[in-house]
């Protein structure tokens, strides 16, 4: 569904993403993990058109999307959430979600957009706060709204940038169930997450990013036991270091 081929993104002398290739298959729930600064958010920014890749090619359902603007990419059926939540604070929760519904397709009426927005709000369980100003929501509710707004665009591919991070455990359980429901509806998901246990529980396939390059990919069980992955997160065991020196 989404093919990233030999993509490189350079910021001056810094290689944020280095010759990265990654495939997301239809109906897959793919998890991307990696230590801080590995290039995870940059990867999403490159896919969604906020950054143009320095080299390489990205195709979505056979259509080349690198170099397209974010609004064009949205209309192709890709939605994303942001790591730092970005709801529209001076609009009501419903209006936030409606904005997602209104512009992702041409010629949708306000009434239809409202229905679709309510559906999305109900799905993430904040429909009871539809009239509240988004700026007045708690962080947890803002994260749900961010998700609802992305869902209101009716995406076929959903890109999630650390939706769980910073949430209390009860919210994390909710969000995990929610993501499973969204996935079960036929939405392909690529999720970046710092919480490794969430990825292990949800993802069918895990991609480990380190210094902008692929470190390892495979099924969740293999990933957490892979020595290089452990090393990238925790460093080498002392015995190994002693043996080397």
């Amino acid at each position, binding site marked *: 569904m989404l093919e990233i081929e030999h993509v490189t993104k350079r910021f001056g002398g810094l290689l944020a993403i280095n010759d990265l290739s990654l495939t997301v298959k239809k109906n897959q729930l793919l998890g991307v993990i990696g230590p801080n600064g590995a290039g995870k958010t940059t990867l999403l920014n490159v896919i969604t058109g906020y950054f143009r890749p320095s080299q390489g090619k990205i195709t979505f359902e056979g259509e080349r999307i690198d170099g397209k603007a974010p*609004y064009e990419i*949205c209309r192709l059926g890709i939605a994303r959430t942001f790591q730092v939540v970005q709801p*529209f604070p*001076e609009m009501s929760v419903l209006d936030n979600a409606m904005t997602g519904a*209104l512009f992702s397709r041409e010629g949708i009426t306000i009434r239809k*957009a409202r229905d679709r927005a309510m559906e999305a709000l109900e799905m993430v369980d904040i429909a009871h*706060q539809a009239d509240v100003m988004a700026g*007045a929501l708690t962080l947890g509710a803002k994260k749900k709204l961010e998700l609802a707004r992305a869902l209101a665009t009716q995406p076929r591919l959903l890109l999630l940038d650390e939706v769980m991070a910073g949430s209390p455990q009860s919210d994390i359980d909710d969000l995990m169930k929610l993501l499973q429901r969204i996935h079960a509806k036929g939405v392909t998901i690529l999720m970046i997450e710092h919480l490794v246990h969430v990825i292990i529980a949800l993802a069918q396939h895990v991609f480990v990013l380190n210094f902008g390059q692929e470190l390892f990919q495979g099924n969740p069980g293999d990933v957490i036991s892979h020595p290089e992955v452990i090393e990238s997160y925790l460093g080498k065991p002392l015995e190994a270091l002693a043996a080397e020196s």
Partner: protein
Amino acid sequence: MKARIAIFLVLGVAVILLPLIAPPVMNNMILRVGSLVMLAISWNLAANAGLISLGHSAFWGLGSYAALLVANKLGWPFFASLIPAMIVGAISAAAIAVITGRLKGIFFAISMLALSECLRVIAVMTPGFTGGGAGVFIDQALRPSTQTVAMVTAFCAVACGFIAYWISLTPFHYACRAMRNNESAAEMLGINPLRFRIAVLSLSGAMASLAGGVNIWYSGFLDPMIGFDLHVTILAQIAPILGGIHTLAGPIIGAFATIGLSEATRILLGEQGVSLLVYGLILVFSILYMPKGIVGTWNTWVQYRSRGAASAKVGTTKAAPL
């Protein structure tokens, strides 16, 4: 909803017919309030999309000069001259939208200020075309009665109000507010910022130019200092801010309040000096203590009354009714 529109329609027609029954001295007031309503609505439309303009006199002046020039050079009558005025305003606003690209906030404001000053200098430097610093009178033979000008001003102001109301019911309104709140997040929802920026500024520019175009027929004389007067720019934002920025009724109420205040201080405190000082002080304190304007303060008060002080809870801030 339908009853509401009917009330607005009746009110609108009454306002347009007002110059027929009001005493002739009122024509001046109708013209001033009507022009300011148009300017304020125009400014507020752009502000709704996050585009704070510090140069609405640019559109005002372009409209004035366009109407004056087609009248003097081509002999176009009053009504016909307003069309090129609007077109010039819309086209120049669209050009500014493209040129300023993604500039927002203070950066956009400064570029608008520069545009206005730049146009003023151009008007001074091209005396053959614009009459230059000496100014130029509009062809007296073509001038309609002040009553006609006042009626047309009232009509245009009402029309601008209806356009603003109609826009508030369309997806356009959602796109503008989303862009104002967070342009990059809006883009991820399928909003092409440039397209909406061009649309909203063109509309805003056309309205302000129309106000300028109507006014030149009333005043009869134009020079670059009058056409691109900073005072117009300031009034264009004081009225909506005083009335309630980002609201529908705000610019209209603000226009009435601003002119009313200026007249009241002038009549009560004499022609110059003290009256202007008091007028300025009242404006400063109103904006200091009512940052949401008259409409915003009213809405807060109504909400406060309706739910009572005791049950005021965080997270229940409802969307404003007006």
